């Protein structure tokens, strides 16, 4: 089995799915000739032609809006927004239309759309290239939000997202794009949306993370008897896996790089408080980015949770 980076695994998913179904088209800025600024769509233009791999004008709302029109009229578009900080102009299209078309038409029209978005901090990039605004999309009924944390999972989740009948925001942690290689099957396979995975089992605490924070978390838990959960899908998130684990361990630490206030950790905390309060031995702890504008690279390390900060929280929770 070949060892692939996340970029290669995502490329393999797109290639395989486009071979399988000619209704799948890819569109976005620089996705054709350039193969995407991160090369996720490399080689697709040569293989599938410019009718299916579409270099669009620089037009985020237009890209997602056009993709919605395509999806509704029977294609299965995979749109790319170059960086998460540039998705805000397309917010209107996602919330006002993609999320609502099935409802507004009472099922006559559906929107099988994937919006791929490189996201997160850690690649020393300019302003608005490091955003982690996943929680906004989790607040939109009708939208699924998926975040892979490894090449193998990236491929299986992207294939599942493409085959999903409803819109999916697919967030790709840029820091992980080339950080790790792992064995990825050539064949197409799916990893179900809405399911978390237990990365490692443990009895004394539950640590929940996603995207690039998962890797820091795995390093941080060394020496602790921690159960680590990779949430993989944030909306709808796998409450059952989270609650079962919390009821077993009685301690919870949630790690995300987005700002704390109204971050997705808040939803997890509230759910745990509602449904597993009586199993808790101590407070729910969150290790998150601060409530500040994401800084430029010089201050990056002060922003994103570090292995040390996560370890501190683990030590703290073990006092209970």
């Amino acid at each position, binding site marked *: 089995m070949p060892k692939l980076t996340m970029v290669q695994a995502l490329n393999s998913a797109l290639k395989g799915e486009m071979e399988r179904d000619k209704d799948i088209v890819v569109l976005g800025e620089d996705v054709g000739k350039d193969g995407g600024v991160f090369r996720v769509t490399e080689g697709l233009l040569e293989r599938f032609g410019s009718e299916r791999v579409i270099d669009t004008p620089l037009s985020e709302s237009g890209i997602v*809006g056009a993709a*919605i*029109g395509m999806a509704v*009229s029977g294609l299965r578009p995979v749109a790319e927004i170059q960086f998460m900080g540039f998705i805000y102009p397309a917010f209107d*299209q996602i919330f006002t239309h993609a999320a609502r078309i099935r409802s*507004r038409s*009472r099922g006559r029209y559906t929107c099988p759309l994937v919006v791929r978005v490189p996201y997160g901090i850690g690649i020393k990039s300019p302003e608005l290239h490091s955003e982690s605004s996943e929680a906004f999309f989790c607040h939109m009924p*009708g939208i*699924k939000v998926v975040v892979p944390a490894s090449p193998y999972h990236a491929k299986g989740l992207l294939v599942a997202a493409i085959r999903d009948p*409803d819109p999916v925001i697919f967030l790709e942690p840029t820091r992980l794009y080339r950080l790790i290689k792992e064995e990825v099957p050539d064949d197409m396979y799916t990893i179900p949306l809405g399911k978390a995975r237990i990365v490692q089992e443990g009895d004394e605490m539950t640590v929940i993370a996603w995207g690039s924070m998962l890797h820091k978390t795995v390093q941080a838990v060394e020496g602790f008897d921690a159960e680590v959960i990779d949430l993989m899908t944030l909306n709808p998130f796998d409450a059952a896996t989270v609650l079962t684990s919390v009821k077993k361990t009685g301690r919870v630490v949630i790690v995300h790089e987005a700002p704390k206030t109204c971050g997705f950790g808040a939803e997890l905390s509230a759910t745990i408080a509602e449904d597993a309060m009586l199993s808790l031995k101590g407070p729910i702890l969150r290790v998150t980015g601060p409530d500040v504008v994401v800084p430029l690279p010089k201050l990056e390390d002060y922003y994103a949770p570090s292995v040390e900060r996560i370890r501190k929280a683990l030590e703290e929770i073990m006092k209970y």
Partner: protein
Amino acid sequence: MPEKILNSINITRLEILDATGTVDEALMPRLSDADIRKMFELLTLSRFFDQRALSLQREGRMGTYASILGQEAAQVGSAFALERKDWVFPSFREMGVHIAMNYPLHLLYQYWAGDERGLRTPEDLNIFPICISVGTHIPHATGAAMAAKYRRDNHAVVAYFGDGATSKGDFHEGFNMAGVFKLPVVYICQNNQWAISVPREQQTAAATLAQKAYAYGFDGIQVDGNDIFAVYKATKDALVKARAGEGPTFIECFTYRMAHHTTADDSTRYRQEKEVELWKSKDPILRLKLFMQKRGLWSAEYQAEVDKKSKALIDEAVQRAEAAPPPKPEDMFTSTQEQLTMRQQKQLGEL
């Protein structure tokens, strides 16, 4: 070096039928007497629909409604040129389009009475649900045209919107992409001069809306929006062009919103009654009637018959809409995604 003229544009305005009911025979599109009668009947039905909607709203039997009064020709005339399977992306003031496309009348009333089931387009039509958020559906038409072009299915795509929408970013993004990819799409603006209280002059400093198309590399034309023949001809020509792979067209229908913005609005706060009076003489139905009279296609008996038939259709539609069983609360859950999430299932159980 002398300066050079790189580009200059001329904006065409098309008028065929004037307010006295006289047509320019040289420009008159090919329409049979039966077609012209059908147009008249659809205009009349649209007006009956509209008037009944307004009275139902006053009686508390319907929610907020956006009247189409005065804009019937811009809507019926353009929709008359469409094929049944063409994709239509309407805004919220396009009942004449729905009616001309034979969208079930009772569903329209059901929708305006606050029931989403009214927007479930029948399977044999490709009308997109009404877009409330101004202009945001323009890129959808662009995308649907990309899909039609890719599949070579010969369906044209039409988007309807008002003058206010031309100020929105999505107007630019949708138009721009349509020009770049030379898509089979027709954009129809009903320039009714008012976006709630903001007059057309305050939407743009451009002399016409039609000219905006040229910045995107395709044709724009202004038509007298109260002239059903001009609207029909411009749309028909644009659709022929679209189906032949010759790219998009922008049609500015120059018309007037005779009523308030919606039933929740009071237009006396911001516009002069004399302006409205001026447009009364340009009524789109009146001028078609005058034309038909001259052609011997109209008589008092015919009018009575058309009115009677329209009233009967409206009566039946209202009755059917009001007799529909109330929507089930679970509908709002089951139509959000194909599958309910665990949490939605729980919330549904708690209803």
